[in-house]
């Protein structure tokens, strides 16, 4: 049997390792860190249909991740989806007339919000609203339009 001191030392190391592992899992793996070290500002965008967009989905600009979806809720007045986008504070020079569109990455991938820059001199700031939006493509609706156009001929 080892001396009590060595044993206590090893138990201390073990407990610290275990707690450290859980801490790292919380911060690095589950992305709690994003709230910790990356300041962001929130803008809203109204979409007719968000399709399968989910919270925490990435917000991209030119394919580069600039933020994530913070919340999705239904606007009770207009019956449109109100999407809150948390944009990384590093990207604070996004033109105010930029457009937001919901795309799907790949055939089976997740849906994400893509920002296309506009030409205005003003930049988006916290609380702003992106007015020009393009909804998610709903496959059923396209099929419906396609079948409808077939019927016209």
């Amino acid at each position: 049997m080892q001396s009590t001191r060595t044993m206590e030392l090893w138990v201390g190391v073990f407990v610290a390792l275990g707690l450290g592992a859980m801490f790292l899992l919380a911060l690095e793996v589950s992305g709690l860190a994003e709230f910790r070290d990356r300041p962001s500002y929130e803008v809203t965008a109204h979409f007719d249909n968000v399709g399968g967009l989910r919270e925490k989905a990435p917000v991209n600009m030119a394919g580069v991740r600039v933020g994530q979806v913070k919340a999705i809720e239904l606007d009770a007045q207009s019956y449109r989806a109100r999407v809150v986008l948390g944009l990384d504070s590093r990207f604070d020079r996004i033109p105010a007339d930029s457009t937001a569109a919901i795309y799907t990455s790949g055939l089976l991938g997740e849906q994400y919000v893509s920002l296309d820059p506009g030409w205005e001199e003003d930049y988006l700031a916290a609380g702003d609203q992106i007015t020009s939006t393009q909804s998610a493509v709903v496959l059923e609706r396209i099929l419906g339009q396609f079948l409808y156009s077939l019927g016209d001929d």
Partner: protein
Amino acid sequence: MITAAFRNLGARTLAALGGVGRAHLLMFRLLAGLLRVLAQPRYIIQQLYAVGVLSLVIIVVSGLFVGMVLALQGYYTLVDFGAAESVGVLVALSLLRELGPVVTALLFAGRAGSSLTAEVGLMKATEQLSSMEMMAVDPELRVIAPRFLACVVAVPLLAGIFSLVGIYGGYLVSVGLIGLDGGAYWGNMQSAVSFSDDVLNGVIKSVVFGIVVGWIALYKGYEAVPTSEGVSRATTHGVVHASLAVLGLDFLLTALMFD
């Protein structure tokens, strides 16, 4: 003949129910004496060393290889769909939700649970437990309770280490070996894994598994027939029952937690 068969069935059922009842009574007595045990953390630390620190090697090595295999298999499947970047998500969710808690508990039942059963069983066979009683020391509080508490503390910590090592093992394979983008590995993982749903539920699972494995292992040792054969049978039964309980409970907990 038929009466004998029914009597046999009845006796077996009563013995099984009696075992379950005695196990619960043991648990109640442990809970009742909890404060007195916590007042002497020296014994718990001793046991934490035996069941926790000494299990680290097998947990770390298994975690590393499980993570690496997950990443490799996940990559082979996902690359057909052009979704190879999601391999980090697959590795992290599999480890945090299922494999981390479950494999840790199974390994723990084999590595630490069996030694606890054998130790307590041997203490009983060599009449150390009854001599303690003779000296007015409660063997349940002096022998069983610290070992039980050590299990409850050790399993979640080991499961956390297992999952973390596994995720880094997956990183080694998918980024180092296959050559995927490291940023995508972590980025996709972070956007898909939620702390409250995945990490916390995994921890809750492993606490439950720690309770169950420790409880079964110690009960089997405490109730062992005090012969060499009885102790060896108790050890085998302890590992088998603990593993089955972990797998069964895992299904229940998964059904409750992730809808």
